[in-house]
């Protein structure tokens, strides 16, 4: 009882604290916030999220997508703080709405890839034998094709059927967003599945699993009730870093013209405008580029912090 110990004398209070076992979550949270760079990462990411959400109250999405040919390639000014693009759209408004899409793509693609990676890793590690052999050969085979090259091919193959828009959560969004999210999710689970598999291989031989089995627990209960909770640490670290990877990959695809199509903005396809001309149009790429970089930097810091916080060897 926290309130009870506070009313007692200092000495007893200290002993109480020492005796009180700390939950794993509390230890991890405490260690995470003791990590200076991780805190910087959290603050930086919070600022970026604030920018793309609060910013949306100042501009409407219709404004962000509105073209105005007479104001094209305008340099940054009071009217357009980040300038305008090749068809006169406000770059600042587009970085706000594009940021929402880019961050959403990162999170949803991460969810797909983490779910797949975890399930496949669990299956390969737990069942072993033929299941393991087939799944791991598949992982090896996919990993031989460079990610960007595979994604460009998939994007080209699937894009033809999707030059339209759809309504998601009350917003009209290019179908290409959905395609990109799915193909990024489907092509980036291999690393995590290998990590989970190797963990499961050692976990399934341990006493608590044998005990659970001897008490009559089925495969499903053992996998999801006993083994999965012990894999949380690497899954969370991978999930965090994967958000950053997915954002960069989306940006690269959109930059090359194989990603999200206008009118829907993403940080990547704002940059695509900069690819079209090598003239001095720095404002086309500085703002979205800096936002991508800061987001990825923040996510990498948070991932590093999480890794250290979960690591039992790094006791501080």
């Amino acid at each position, binding site marked *: 009882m926290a309130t009870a110990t506070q009313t007692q004398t200092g000495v007893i209070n200290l002993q109480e604290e020492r005796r009180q076992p700390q939950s794993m979550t509390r230890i991890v949270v405490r260690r995470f916030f003791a990590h200076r760079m991780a805190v910087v990462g959290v603050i930086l990411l919070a600022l970026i999220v604030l920018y793309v959400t609060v910013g949306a109250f100042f501009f409407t999405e219709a404004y962000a997508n509105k073209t105005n040919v007479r104001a094209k390639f305008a340099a940054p000014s009071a009217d357009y703080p980040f300038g305008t693009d090749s068809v006169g759209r406000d770059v600042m408004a587009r970085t706000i709405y594009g940021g929402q899409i880019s961050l959403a793509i990162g999170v949803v693609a991460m969810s797909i890839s983490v779910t797949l990676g975890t399930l496949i890793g669990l299956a390969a590690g737990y069942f072993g034998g033929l299941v393991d052999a087939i799944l791991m050969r598949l992982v090896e085979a996919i990993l*031989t094709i460079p990610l960007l090259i595979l994604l460009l*091919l998939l994007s*080209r193959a699937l894009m033809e059927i999707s030059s339209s828009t759809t309504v998601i959560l009350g917003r009209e969004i290019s179908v290409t967003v959905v395609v990109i999210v799915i193909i990024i999710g489907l092509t980036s689970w291999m690393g995590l599945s290998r990590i989970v598999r190797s963990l499961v291989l050692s976990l399934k031989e341990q006493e608590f699993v044998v005990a659970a089995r001897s008490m009559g627990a089925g495969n499903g209960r053992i996998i999801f009730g006993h083994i999965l909770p012990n894999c949380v640490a690497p899954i969370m670290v991978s999930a965090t870093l994967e958000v950053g990877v997915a954002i*960069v990959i989306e940006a690269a695809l959109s930059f090359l013209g194989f990603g999200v199509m206008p009118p829907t903005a993403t940080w990547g396809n704002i940059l695509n405008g900069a690819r079209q001309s090598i003239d001095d149009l720095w404002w086309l790429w500085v703002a979205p580029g800096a936002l991508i970089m800061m987001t990825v*930097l923040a996510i990498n810091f948070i991932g590093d912090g999480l890794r250290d916080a979960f690591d039992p060897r790094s006791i501080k």
Partner: protein
Amino acid sequence: MGKYIIQRVLQAIPLVFIITMLVFVLMKIAGDPLAYLAQDPRVRPLDRLVLRAKYGLDDPMVMQFIYWVFGDEGVERPVDVDNDGETDFTAVGVRRGIIRGDFGESIRFRKPVTEVIGQFLPNTLLLGTTAFVVTIILSLVIGVFAALRQYTLADNIITAGTFITYSMPVFLLALILVQIFAIQFRRWGLPSLPVSGMYDPRGNQSIDELVRHMILPVASLALINIAGWSRYIRATMLEVINSDYIRTARSKGISERRVIFLHALKNASLPLVTLIGLNLPFILSGAVITETIFSWPGMGYMYINALDQFDASLVVAFVLMIAVAVVFFQLLTDVVYAWLDPRIRYD
């Protein structure tokens, strides 16, 4: 050792088979290779039927895969143009199969795919190898330097720099370099660097011209890799420096220079063999983004254009070639590593 090599080769064979199947499935997902004919008014429906038969596009999928791999020379396919149950025409297969190097013809270049790849590959190798060598040398220098001065101001500055570069997408770095060294330099009246192609449009194609065109793409490729690699070298170097045999070497009174460069660096460069071996095949794939930004006529640039025009056989040959190269270099790396490091058992 011989047994180990044979064992690794035997492991690689099913992998290559799975990759081939995967690429075939990708090719089928990517759609109809004759779709481009639909837009051509000169192509009659009859011609399309004949072509479909020639390439066996209506065969069962399993047979299509087998023909694609092993060839379909002499395979006859009857074509019934008017649907009257009689054979009006017999198409005979002429493909020799990818196993014998027949990847088909590029629809854009109207040449065998292997020839087209042979035309772009040298440019990519030139750019990629230069960037690779620059990366290895600079990351060794930076990594060893940072490890020897751990936690000093210089080390911290290097750490911060690598972290920022590491989080930077390659296209952003390339755009920054272009802005500074091409656009701003020209404005300031300084000698600016070219940003497009391998030679000047009306140049004399000299070595000097080529080198100037290479500086920016090589710099963007190398800088990104140096960030990750120098961290890696710093970490392995630190591990080695703090090990017992280095302390022994020092206690014997060997000069510090000898300890670092002969004893420590030699052992620290072992993991580097893996890093180099596993990254070598990716030189072949070219740097899609960098080559596109700088219009460098290499493999990555060719790939993007082939995708744009849906040059299916070129795309497939390219993807398959890289995948097989990756498998080959993985094998080579394992063998070299086992040979270099006697601690590795290969039985």
